[in-house]
C-alpha cells in the first residue's frame, strides 16, 4: 500500500483569516495520504514543519482507525479493514478531545478524510463535516479545472469553507 504518493510539496502556507473563527485548522487527505488541503485559521503553536505535520496527522488517523476497529467489543463478525464504508457504518472513530482542543474526523467511502480541529467545548461535528463534504463535492469534485489527487486550489471552495466554518457554534 502506498502511503505518501504524489508530490512532496506541501500546500502553500495558510493565510490566517479574521478573528472570530471557531475552528483552529482543517486538513483534507486523500486515500494515498496526499494532503489535498490544509487551512489554518487560528494556530498560535507550530511544533513541526508542514511536511512532518501532515505525515504525522495522516499516520495518526490511520492508526486510530485501525485500533478502534480492532478493539471493538460488540461486533461479532469483523469486516476487512480498508473497504469503503459510509461514515457511521461499521466501527468508525469520529473524534477525540483534549483539554485544549477537539479533533473531529470523517472518512468518505472514496477515502477522502476530513479533519477539523476546534476548541474543546464544540459539540458533535459529524453533520458539520458532512456539509463540508458536500461543499467539496460541489466545488472541487465537480470542478472541471481540478485534477483529482492534486492540491485544492479552488477559490470558490475556499471562500465557501471559510464562510461556513465561521458560522459553526
Amino acid at each position, binding site marked *: 500500500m502506498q502511503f505518501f504518493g504524489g508530490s512532496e510539496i506541501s500546500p502553500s502556507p495558510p493565510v490566517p483569516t479574521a478573528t472570530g473563527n471557531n475552528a483552529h485548522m482543517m486538513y483534507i487527505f486523500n486515500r494515498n495520504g496526499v494532503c489535498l488541503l490544509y487551512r489554518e485559521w487560528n494556530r498560535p503553536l507550530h511544533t513541526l514543519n508542514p511536511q512532518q505535520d501532515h505525515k504525522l496527522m495522516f499516520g495518526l488517523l490511520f492508526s486510530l482507525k485501525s485500533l478502534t476497529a480492532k478493539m471493538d467489543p460488540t461486533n461479532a463478525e469483523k469486516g476487512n479493514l480498508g473497504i469503503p464504508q459510509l461514515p457511521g457504518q461499521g466501527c468508525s472513530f469520529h473524534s477525540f478531545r483534549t483539554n485544549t482542543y477537539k479533533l473531529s474526523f470523517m472518512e468518505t467511502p472514496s477515502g477522502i478524510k476530513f479533519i477539523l480541529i476546534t476548541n474543546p467545548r464544540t459539540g458533535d461535528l459529524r453533520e458539520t463535516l458532512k456539509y463540508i463534504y458536500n461543499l467539496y463535492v*460541489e*466545488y472541487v469534485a*465537480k*470542478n*472541471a*479545472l481540478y485534477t483529482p489527487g492534486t492540491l485544492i*486550489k*479552488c*477559490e*470558490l*471552495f*475556499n471562500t465557501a469553507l471559510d464562510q461556513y466554518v465561521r458560522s459553526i457554534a
Partner: protein
Amino acid sequence: MGREVSESCIDSLLTEMVSTYCNRFYANKPELAARRIEAIGYQVGHQLSERYTMERPRFSDHLEAIKFICKDFWFELFKKQIDNLKTNHRGTFVLQDNRFRWLTTMSIEQPPENGTSEELSIAADNKALQSMHLYFPCGIIRGALSNLGIPCAVSADISNLPACSFVVRIKA
C-alpha cells in the same frame, strides 16, 4: 415531458466531453476542438428547439425568437431565464446570464501578482480551458436559432464571472 436524468450526470458528461476533445482528440489544436464542440452544441440546440416550440405558432420577427430563447428555452434548459437582454436593433443581441449554471462550480486560484512564470502559464491555461466550456452553449443557441430560420453567429464573454454574456450576431 419524458424521462429525467440526474444533473450531476449531465455536468460530468459535459466536463468530460470538453476535456476529451481538448486533451485527446485534438490536443494542440484548440481551434479544431472548439469547432467540434460547437458543432455538437449546434445539433443539440437544433433538436431542443424543435421539442420546445411544438405547440407554438411561428415567430413574427427576430426579436420574438430571441425573446423565446431568453425566456422559455433558457428556462427549460437551466431552470431560470436570461437576466439581461441588450440589442443594437441592427442584428446584434447580448444575452446576459448573471449566474450561468455550468460555470458555477468552476473556479481556480488566482495567481499572486508576482508569481513565477510557470504559475502564470498554468493560470492562462485554466482560463483557456474555462472558455472552452462555453462553446457548447454557444452552439446550442446557434442551433436553436437556425432551426427557427435565423442564421447567426454566437460567441461568449466571461470577463466578469459568474456572469456570462452570449453575443448573437444575426447574418443579414
